[in-house]
């Protein structure tokens, strides 16, 4: 039919695709600069406070276009004025918001800070993107207090407080990145992108929390994704993901469990099929499966349909069994057939 170009190995294809979704150095630098400005404003407002970083920028798995950054401030509360059963977080959130407006307005004239209607964080809208591909850049700022009686912090939950340990989360992720020589962040980034392209059945933190239990050694990308999917199917099928810091409630799913598991299974099936096809000597079909997996032509375009058609024809011809003649006995035209019969093979196309 036509001359087919060489297709590189899957691992190389997915590695190239990974680079296309990776946050750029300039996006990161700008995000960090803004995060530092927020941090300065908060530490100035809350004397003796400490800040912590969280989210994709801190965890090394940010995607492009970069849309937000996460930051927390732990406000000292020596007289135990705040906390469950005492004062809620609203006053501290209002002070933080005012400090951000006061200190950042000069540089970001259009800046808006939202407190009202926010469950946990203060939302800072810079109204000035760090990427030309996204109209705004935001920051989620958590105003927390130490939990004097147990591990972790108290973070806002509307007008009251919840236990959480975001500092420990970042420690765990940073340690995982180090132990896996960045394999953890790469697998997480790819699975985050997969999730986004499939109606986000899992939030980013859930993807990372699951990865903390299964991506613990250096790994190539495709084996890492397969391992993550296998583990996640097993875990998500039976329970929500426990908080890796063992402080917060388990991480909830974004969709009904059966639907999330279905998507995970489908993803695993597609990825397994890609590997099988590559091992069987069908690189075009393998890349096609990989493209189906990510479902994002900007990140990974499907191979040329003519190449796919040609290679699929080759595969089918190679795998076509030699069949004997149809039995002279007539077909069983009616009658019950047991449940869960074989997948029908060898059917003959026909016509009147």
């Amino acid at each position: 039919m036509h001359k087919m170009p060489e297709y590189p190995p899957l691992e190389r294809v997915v590695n190239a695709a990974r680079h296309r979704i990776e946050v750029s150095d300039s996006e990161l630098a700008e995000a960090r600069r803004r995060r530092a400005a927020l941090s300065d404003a908060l530490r100035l407002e809350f004397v003796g406070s400490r800040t912590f970083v969280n989210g994709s920028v801190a965890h090394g798995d940010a995607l492009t276009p970069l849309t937000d950054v996460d930051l927390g401030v732990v406000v000292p509360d020596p007289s135990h004025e705040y906390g469950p059963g005492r004062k809620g977080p609203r006053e501290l959130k209002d002070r933080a918001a005012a400090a951000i407006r006061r200190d950042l307005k000069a540089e970001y004239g259009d800046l808006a800070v939202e407190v009202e209607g926010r469950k946990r964080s203060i939302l800072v809208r810079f109204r000035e993107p760090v990427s030309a591909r996204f109209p705004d850049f935001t920051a989620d700022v958590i105003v927390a207090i130490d939990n004097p009686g147990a591990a972790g912090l108290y973070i806002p939950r509307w007008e009251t407080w919840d236990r959480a340990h975001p500092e420990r989360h970042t420690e765990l992720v940073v340690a995982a990145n180090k132990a896996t020589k960045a394999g953890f962040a790469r697998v997480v980034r790819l699975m985050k992108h997969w999730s986004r392209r499939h109606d986000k059945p899992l939030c980013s933190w859930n993807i990372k929390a699951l990865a903390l239990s299964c991506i613990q050694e250096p790994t190539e990308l495709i084996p890492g994704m397969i391992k993550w999917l296998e583990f996640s199917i097993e875990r998500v099928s039976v329970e929500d993901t426990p908080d890796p810091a063992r402080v917060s409630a388990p991480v909830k799913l974004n969709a009904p469990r059966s639907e999330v598991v279905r998507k995970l299974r489908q993803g695993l099936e597609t990825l397994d099929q890609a590997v099988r096809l590559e091992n069987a000597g069908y690189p075009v079909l393998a890349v096609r499966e990989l493209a189906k997996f990510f479902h994002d032509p900007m990140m990974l375009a499907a191979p040329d349909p003519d190449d796919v058609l040609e290679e699929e024809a080759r595969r089918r011809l190679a795998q076509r069994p030699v069949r004997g003649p149809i039995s002279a006995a007539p077909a069983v035209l009616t009658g019950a057939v047991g449940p869960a019969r074989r997948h029908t093979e060898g059917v003959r196309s026909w016509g009147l």
Partner: protein
Amino acid sequence: MGTVARWWYGADPVWALPFERDAKRKYGTLIRRDLFERTLVYRHAGLEIPGRSEPVPVAVRFEKTPSYETFGLRPEDYPRVFADHGLPSPHRMPDGSLCLYYPLDPVERRWIAADGLLALLNIAADHIFYETYWRRTGGKGRGRWLGDEAPHGIRRRVA
């Protein structure tokens, strides 16, 4: 024309639920089911066919008492399957439906309802691929059909 149906299987959950279970598990919301008084239609939003740049929508239509010949098969074992309306193919019925299997073949070489909707969609996907390849390799007179084929027409069993 068709066989007289003993019961309207399409409206019977005992028949329909196991029939569609695997397909729904695999395709989720890509499959839609429309039940009418005498017809049941499953629509797949688009099967992925090798060599096609866009998914191909497929409709499977069951009739309580088929208005078409079923060649002695039970209505539920011989639905109409539609895709790629109007495109040339050597294996279509006069109404444009896909001729997926020879109705007088032994049961192991044709689809029956007990195989489930997913198996039928798999056969349809194969058929659509064969049609695509046939057209791409020259179509009528020259095109190559990669699947098994039965001679056209029906050979009635001699008593």
